[in-house]
């Protein structure tokens, strides 16, 4: 009997059981791959955010140093304290230099002197000028003032320049470090909150560069985009969803909208350059043109979202409105549209968030200009926040790296707020019928 069972081929059950271990192992492996993929995605996100924040948080502080400034009319070259033109044209950098010379009388060599002057930002002289112009009584007095330090000093204080590296291999000489330590030891050099970064326009000097002009440019551009794309997007969605007959034309429009949503953004830039700027002769670098191009780009997003919102309004609402004698237009504008509005607004905010982060088409439209002034209108030359980030990322100074990261943090902050608003709107007003 035993011999017989041994020689019979294994039953199906046995075959299945024999493979079970392998199959379960494979099952576990597959599951682990899935978890690994999700974790990897999270790790990428975390690395990205960490690298930005760790590089950028220090830009919100800036090194200031205390100088003893003697407002000597002779150094300034002011003969008549009542002469406004003389005051505004006076030699303020000379004041800073004189103060530094008084601080370190032992520096006599011409070259060393020039390096010494370099530890104070060139913005300090402007600040002094501002002060004297506001209050000419300062002339002849001596004041202890906190002024901006140079960006290299700032980098050293923040520890981005390694003191332990050999002198020839670092951006700062031992001499300079000695001067800086002199200030640090006396408590006359410290990190303060960086208001310049938030209130100034662009500058070639990192310590004087800020994002205000870029933010204003972004807001103006978004304003143009919003005021064009929202009405047009909603109108298009209403027509396609409520009025359009189903024929080849509306089919064509639909296919078109879906395709436009996937056209590379840089192609929209080419369109703007060839049509708006070259053909219609609109101004370069202007938020108006940027906003118009971004409108064309965000329209598909808004139209698709708005159509989904209209679709979610149940037909009973429409029938009820028509039943009590409303015209079709009244039915749409008095009943359907208000109910679909939260969904449409959510889609619009998401479209605006996209537009805020867009860079490539704006490069084509000349919004890469070096903009110091804060733009005042939609036809003034302007740049936008992402383009500012791009420009700074190209700058060689070490101090611009932290500023770029900080600008990215501000940009991401805006995006988080906008998306949170969209989520809130959806949660608050979403109705299930």
């Amino acid at each position: 009997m035993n011999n017989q069972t041994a020689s019979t081929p294994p039953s199906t059950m046995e075959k299945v059981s024999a493979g079970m271990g392998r199959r379960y192992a494979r099952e576990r492996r597959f599951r682990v791959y899935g978890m690994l993929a999700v974790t990897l995605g999270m790790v990428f996100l975390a690395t990205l955010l960490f690298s930005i924040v760790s590089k950028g948080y220090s830009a919100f502080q800036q090194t200031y140093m205390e100088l003893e400034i003697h407002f000597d009319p002779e150094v300034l070259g002011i003969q008549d304290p009542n002469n406004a033109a003389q005051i505004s044209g006076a030699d303020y950098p000379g004041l800073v230099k004189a103060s530094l010379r008084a601080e370190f009388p032992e520096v006599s060599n011409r070259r060393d002197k020039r390096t010494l002057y370099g530890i104070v930002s060139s913005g300090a002289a402007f600040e002094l000028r501002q002060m004297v112009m506001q209050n000419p009584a300062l002339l002849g007095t001596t004041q202890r003032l906190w002024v901006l330090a140079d960006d290299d000093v700032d980098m050293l204080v923040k520890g981005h320049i390694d003191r332990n590296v050999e002198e020839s291999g670092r951006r700062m000489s031992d001499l300079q470090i000695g001067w800086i330590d002199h200030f640090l030891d006396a408590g006359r050099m410290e990190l303060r909150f960086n208001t310049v970064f938030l209130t100034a326009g662009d500058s070639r000097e990192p310590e004087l560069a800020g994002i205000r002009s870029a933010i204003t440019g972004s807001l103006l551009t978004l304003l143009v985009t919003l005021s064009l794309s929202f009405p047009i997007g909603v109108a298009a969605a209403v027509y396609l969803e409520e009025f359009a007959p189903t024929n080849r034309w509306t089919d064509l429009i639909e296919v078109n909208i879906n395709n436009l949503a996937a056209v590379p953004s840089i192609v929209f830039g080419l369109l703007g350059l060839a049509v708006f700027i070259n053909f219609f002769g609109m101004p370069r670098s202007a938020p108006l043109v940027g906003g118009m191009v971004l409108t064309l780009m965000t329209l598909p997003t808004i139209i698709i979202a708005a159509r989904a919102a209209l679709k979610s309004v149940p037909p009973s609402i429409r029938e009820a409105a028509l039943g009590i004698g409303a015209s079709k237009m009244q039915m749409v504008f008095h009943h359907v549209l208000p109910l679909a509005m939260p969904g449409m607004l959510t889609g619009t905010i998401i479209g605006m968030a996209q537009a805020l982060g867009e860079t490539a088409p704006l490069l084509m439209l000349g919004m890469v200009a070096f903009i110091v002034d804060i733009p005042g209108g939609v036809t003034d030359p302007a740049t936008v926040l992402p383009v500012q980030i791009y420009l700074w990322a190209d700058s060689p100074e070490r101090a611009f790296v932290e500023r770029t990261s900080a600008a990215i943090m501000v940009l991401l902050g805006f995006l988080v707020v906008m998306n949170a608003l969209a989520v809130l709107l959806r949660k608050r007003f979403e109705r299930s019928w």
Partner: protein
Amino acid sequence: MQISTLLFVLAALTIASYYLGRNRSLVVADRNIRLLHSLPSYYGLFTAIWCAIPALVVLLLWNSFEGHLVTQLVIAGLPDELRNLPDTRLNLVLNDIRNIVAGGVASGGEPTPALREAAAHYAHLESISAMAMTVVSLALASLSAVLAWRTIRREQRARNNVETAIKGFLILSSLIAIFTTIGIVLSVLFESIRFFHSVPLTDFLLGLEWSPQMAIRADQVGSSGAFGAIPLFVGTLLISLIAMLVAVPIGLMSAIYLSEYAAPKVRAIAKPLLEVLAGIPTVVYGFFAALTVAPLIRDSGSLIGLDVSSESALAAGLVMGIMIIPFVSSLSDDVIKAVPQTMRDGSYGLGATKSETIRLVVIPAALPGIVGGVLLAVSRAIGETMIVVMAAGLAAKLTMNPLDTVTTVTVQIVTLLVGDQEFDSPKTLAAFALGLMLFTVTLVLNIIALHVVRKYREQYE
């Protein structure tokens, strides 16, 4: 008058005409609304539309053609020796004139009397034009509003008229999508055709060398420039390939895990977090690639003795892949969800494990949808600009080595077009030819992908 003030006055006129029209309807009906065909507000809107629309149309046309017309008139008024200059020189003269008008300085120092006279002429014409525009548009607005106001009768179908106008606006809005596409096609096509007049199509499509430097003088060294786009296509493909190698496995596996395995709580947290990756602006990825990933790859490459370029295709492709992960995962998530539960149940009933069900039943069933999603992702990778502009190189090398530096179509478009440029050099026009290529390829990919996805959806509905 400033254009903004003009618009403001026009808006005020429109609002006034609304109330006038509304009142008129009430007067006509002796304050008895029932006698009117439409509600009084429709009569108001009717008048307001007649006030605003014709004036706005005139303003728009005026603004589009004013500059051209004024320029032509100024040219006609120039002395003969200036008027007969070649086009490029004439443009310089015109720029000088504009500068003088704006209070700036002409390029050649002190302007000649002829230029000064032309500038005065220009300024004079501009002020006449501005004045005429104000008068014409405001007069037209008032006139058409008054005419509309006079036609108001009890039995007038004001609501129908207003609704027709609104419907016209709706139709016009939905046509903008088509106008945009036509605009894109025409703008890149025309400039490309001009480009192909100077550089033959075959040289462009099959040439192996890309160096778009055009000489300023004809006798300069290397004056011809080479416009062979093959290295750009290869570079674009290489970076996109790397990106897809990162994005497809990670995106697909996380979609499978999140839709088939993960607990609802995990899914509720992990899915939005993954989608954050899609919301981050590309310029941020570019910065990340150029300042974090590229040095990392170069340093780890030199550790194991590899010579890695600091602008390697690998860095750009890797980061682009990260950006595309959520794109792949959310599209695959949708199609995996669309596979009917009955198919899974059938597979479980036959004794298959979960992973076997997914691999042998769900994925094959969802494959067309997934392929469509991947195609969309490819078209996004090809068209992606900022990451490659910031992290990939400018040198057009014909290589498939991911550690070497390559350049892409989008990088070249940006480098050719950023900054001041003339619209008649092949260098600038080449950007439009590249744009045409880019648009065509992505359009074809999109159409195929959307078609596949749509067909697939119908299959299980």
